[in-house]
C-alpha cells in the first residue's frame, strides 16, 4: 500500500490513547466530565456497530443470514452500545451542564479516543457515496471489500475489543477511591461497563463460532482513505524507496481508473489509447519479470528455505507469460483501428507512467525512459534489496503493478466489447484475404474481432495468474501488499477471468499458443519459424474445436463457435474479406456486481 494513513493507524492511535488514560479524576464535576467523555467514545462505537449491522453498500443478491452468529452479534452489539450510551447520558440539568470547558486527565484522553475513532469511521465512509434518492453506492474499489461480511466481522471484532477496553477504564474509574460525592456517575459507569462487556462477550461468542482470519484483520487495517495521491512522474533523484512508492501509487491510481471504467460509463476508447496501454503493459510486465528474477537471486541469503525462492521464480515466469500475452495484444491492436469521434479524449498516460516507474526500478540509468533505446543496464540484485527488509517492499511494488494490469485488461476488454457491438472496429483493407474494398479500411471481420477479444482475455488471465503468484510471494515474505489478495477474495473478484465466456474464432486461439510461447522462450526470433509455430498452434486449436463439434463430444456451457460451421448460422452484413459480417460473437457480459444498498 502507499504510505498514506490507513484505518489501522486510527485503531492504533485510539488504543494508544486509551492505554495512556490519565489519573482518576478527583470527583464531582471531574467524574461527570470523564463519564461524558467515555459516553462520546461509546456513541462512536455505536455508530460503527450500526454501520456494520446495516451493511451499507452491500451487494444485492448476497444472502444475509439473519440467524448467523455474526449477524446476531452485530445487531446485539448495536443494541448494547446504545444502552451503554443511554446509561451515561446525564439528566438535563443546569447544574451538570456547565458548558464547554477544557477537560483534563482521563476525560481528555477519552475525548481524544472519540475523535480518532470518529475520524477512522469517516475514513471508511469516504469509500461510499449516495445517489440523489439516498441509495448508498460504492465510490472506490475498496468499498466492495468493506461491505463484505468477512471485513464487517473484522470491524465488529475491533469494535468489541475497543468496547472491552472502554469497559475496563469505566470500571477503574467507578471503583477509584474518593468518590463518595458522585454516586450517580459511578453507578452509570458501572452499568455502562456491564453493557459493554455484554457486547464484547456476544462478539467473542461469534468469533468462537466463526473466527476472524488474521488476513481479514490485516485487510481492514490496510484500508486507506478514498483520496489518492496526485499523479507522480519519476525524477532522476528518486532512490529505490521512492521508486517503489511511486510504482505503488501509480498502480493504485490505474486500478481506481479501471474500477471506475468497469462500473460507470467511460469515455470512448481510442486506437491510440488501446495501443498505448498494450505497449505500456507489455513493458511493465517485462520489468516485473526482471525485478522478480533479481529478487529471487537476492532472496537466497535471506530466506534459506528454497520454497520462497522457487515461489518468486514462479512469479517471475508468470510475469513473463503476462508480458507475452500483452505483447500479443499489442500486435493484434496494430492490425485494427477504432472509429472514434474526433473529439475523443487523449489517453491519460498513467499506464505509461507505471512502465516508467518499474523501468526506473529495473535499470540503473536514473534518466531511463521508454524511448531510451538499447543502452541501459539492469540494476544488480543487491542494489534493489540491500537488506532483508527491502525484499517485502520490492515484492509489494511488483505485486501492485501486476495487480493493476489485471484490472486494466478487464476494463479494456469490456470497452472493446462495446466498441465491437457498436461496429466501431475496422481493419486495413489490405490486411484482408481479398482486399477488393475501395476504401483503405473495412469493417473488421468476425474472426478479427474474436481474435482481439481473445488476446485481451488471455492477457487478463495471464495478468491475473501473475498477480496471484506475486500475491503468494507477498504472503510468504510478509509484504504489505498481501491484503490485495484478501480484498479480491472478500469481494469475489478474484475469479473475474474465469467467468468470462470463451468465444473461439474459427481459426481461434489464445495468443500466444503453446508452441509459439515455447519458441519465444527459447529465444527464437525468426519470423519464419514463429509463423510456422503459429500455424501449428492454430492447427492444434482447429483439431480440438473439430473434436468438440463431434456429436458425442461433451460441451461446456460457453458459447463456442465451432469451426467450419455454416455461414448461415452467423448472419450479418458481408465485409471485405467475403466471409462473415462484422458481427460480434456471442460474448455475454461478464458477471458484474453492481453495488446497491442492501435492503
Amino acid at each position, binding site marked *: 500500500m502507499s504510505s498514506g494513513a490507513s484505518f489501522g493507524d486510527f485503531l492504533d492511535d485510539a488504543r494508544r490513547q486509551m492505554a495512556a488514560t490519565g489519573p482518576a479524576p478527583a470527583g464531582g464535576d471531574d467524574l461527570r466530565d470523564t463519564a461524558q467523555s467515555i459516553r462520546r467514545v461509546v456513541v462512536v462505537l455505536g455508530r460503527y456497530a450500526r454501520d456494520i449491522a446495516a451493511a451499507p453498500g452491500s451487494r444485492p443478491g448476497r444472502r444475509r443470514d439473519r440467524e448467523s452468529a455474526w449477524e446476531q452479534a452485530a445487531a446485539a452489539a448495536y443494541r448494547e452500545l446504545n444502552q451503554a450510551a443511554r446509561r451515561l447520558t446525564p439528566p438535563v440539568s443546569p447544574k451538570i451542564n456547565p458548558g464547554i470547558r477544557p477537560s483534563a486527565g482521563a476525560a481528555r484522553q477519552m475525548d481524544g479516543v472519540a475523535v480518532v475513532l470518529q475520524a477512522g469511521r469517516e475514513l471508511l465512509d469516504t469509500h461510499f457515496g449516495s445517489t440523489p434518492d439516498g441509495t448508498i453506492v460504492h465510490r472506490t474499489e475498496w468499498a466492495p471489500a468493506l461491505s463484505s461480511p468477512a471485513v464487517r466481522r473484522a470491524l465488529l471484532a475491533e469494535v468489541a475489543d475497543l468496547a472491552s477496553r472502554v469497559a475496563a477504564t469505566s470500571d477503574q474509574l467507578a471503583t477509584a477511591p474518593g468518590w463518595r460525592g458522585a454516586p450517580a456517575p459511578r453507578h452509570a459507569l458501572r452499568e455502562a461497563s456491564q453493557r459493554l462487556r455484554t457486547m464484547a462477550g456476544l462478539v467473542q461468542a461469534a468469533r468462537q463460532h466463526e473466527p476472524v482470519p488474521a488476513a481479514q484483520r490485516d485487510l481492514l487495517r490496510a484500508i486507506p482513505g478514498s483520496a489518492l495521491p496526485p499523479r507522480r512522474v519519476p525524477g532522476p533523484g528518486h532512490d529505490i524507496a521512492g521508486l517503489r512508492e511511486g510504482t505503488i501509487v501509480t498502480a493504485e491510481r490505474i486500478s481506481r481508473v479501471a474500477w471506475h471504467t468497469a462500473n460507470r460509463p467511460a469515455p470512448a476508447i481510442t*486506437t*491510440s489509447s488501446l*495501443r498505448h496501454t*498494450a*505497449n505500456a503493459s*507489455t*513493458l511493465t510486465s*517485462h520489468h516485473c*519479470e526482471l525485478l522478480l528474477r533479481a529478487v529471487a537471486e537476492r532472496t537466497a541469503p535471506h530466506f534459506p528455505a528454497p520454497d520462497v525462492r522457487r515461489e518468486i521464480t514462479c512469479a517471475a515466469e508468470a510475469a*513473463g507469460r503476462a*508480458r507475452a500475452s500483452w*505483447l500479443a495484444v*499489442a*500486435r493484434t*491492436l*496494430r*492490425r485494427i*483501428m477504432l472509429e472514434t469521434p474526433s473529439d475523443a479524449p487523449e489517453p491519460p498516460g498513467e499506464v505509461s507512467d507505471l512502465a516508467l516507474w518499474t*523501468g526506473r526500478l529495473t535499470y540503473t540509468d536514473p534518466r531511463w525512459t*521508454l*524511448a*531510451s*533505446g*538499447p*543502452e*541501459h543496464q539492469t540494476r544488480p540484485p543487491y542494489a534493489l534489496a540491500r537488506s532483508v527488509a527491502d525484499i517485502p517492499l520490492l515484492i509489494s511494488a511488483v505485486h501492485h503493478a501486476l495487480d493493476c494490469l489485471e484490472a486494466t485488461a478487464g476494463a479494456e476488454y469490456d470497452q472493446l466489447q462495446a466498441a465491437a457491438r457498436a461496429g466501431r472496429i475496422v481493419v*486495413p483493407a*489490405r490486411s484482408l484475404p481479398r*482486399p*477488393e474494398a*475501395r*476504401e*483503405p*479500411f473495412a469493417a473488421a471481420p468476425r474472426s478479427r474481432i474474436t481474435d482481439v477479444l481473445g488476446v485481451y482475455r488471455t492477457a487478463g488471465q495471464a495478468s491475473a495468474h501473475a498477480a496471484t503468484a506475486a500475491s503468494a510471494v507477498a504472503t510468504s515474505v510478509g509484504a504489505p501488499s498481501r491484503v490485495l489478495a484478501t480484498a479480491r477474495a472478500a469481494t469475489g473478484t478474484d475469479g473475474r477471468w474465469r467467468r468470462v465466456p470463451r468465444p473461439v474464432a474459427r481459426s481461434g486461439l489464445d495468443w500466444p499458443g503453446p508452441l509459439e510461447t515455447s519458441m*519465444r522462450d527459447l*529465444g527464437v*526470433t*525468426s*519470423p*519464419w*519459424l*514463429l*509463423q510456422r509455430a503459429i500455424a501449428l498452434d492454430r492447427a492444434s486449436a482447429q483439431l480440438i474445436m473439430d473434436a468438440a463439434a463431434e456429436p458425442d463430444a461433451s460441451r461446456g456451457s460457453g458459447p463456442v463457435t465451432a469451426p467450419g460451421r455454416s455461414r448461415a448460422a452467423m448472419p450479418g452484413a458481408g465485409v471485405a474479406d467475403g466471409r462473415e459480417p462484422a458481427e460480434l460473437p456471442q460474448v455475454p457480459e461478464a458477471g458484474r456486481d453492481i453495488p446497491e444498498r442492501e435492503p
Partner: protein
Amino acid sequence: MATASIFWQVQQVRAAAGLPEVLESARAAFDCMLAEAEAHEHPGTPLFPAFVLAATAAASGRDAVLLAPSLPWPPRDNGPGGGQAFGPGEPAGVAARALASLCQALICRLEAAAGSAAGAGDRDACRYAAGRARVIGDLMAWPEDE
C-alpha cells in the same frame, strides 16, 4: 535478407515522385518497419522496449498514411518482403540501424510533402506520419560502436 528489404524501401521512398507516390512508398515503408520491428520483439534483447514501441509507432504511421486522401488505391505490391514475414533475420542492432536509415528517408520526404500538399487531409497525414517516423528513428538510434 531483412535489411535488403528495408534498403529497397529506402530507395522507393527516395525515388518517389509526387504526393501519391510518396504516400504509397510511405505506406509500404511503415508496413515493412512494422514487420521488421515485430520480428525483433524478443524480451531477451536490450532493444525489446524499443522494438515494441517502434512497431506500434509504425502501425500508427501506416494508419495515418492510409487516411491520406491522395493515397492511390488499391495499393501496389510492397516489393520484396515489404509488410510480410521475413526469413531468418539479422541481429537486432543491424536491423535497428537499417530501420533508422529508412526513418530518415521517410521523415525527409513526408515533411516535404506536408509542406507542399494542397489538401489539409494530406498535410495532416504526412505531418503525423513524419512524427511517427521520427519516434521510430529515435528508438532505433543504435550506437555506431555496437
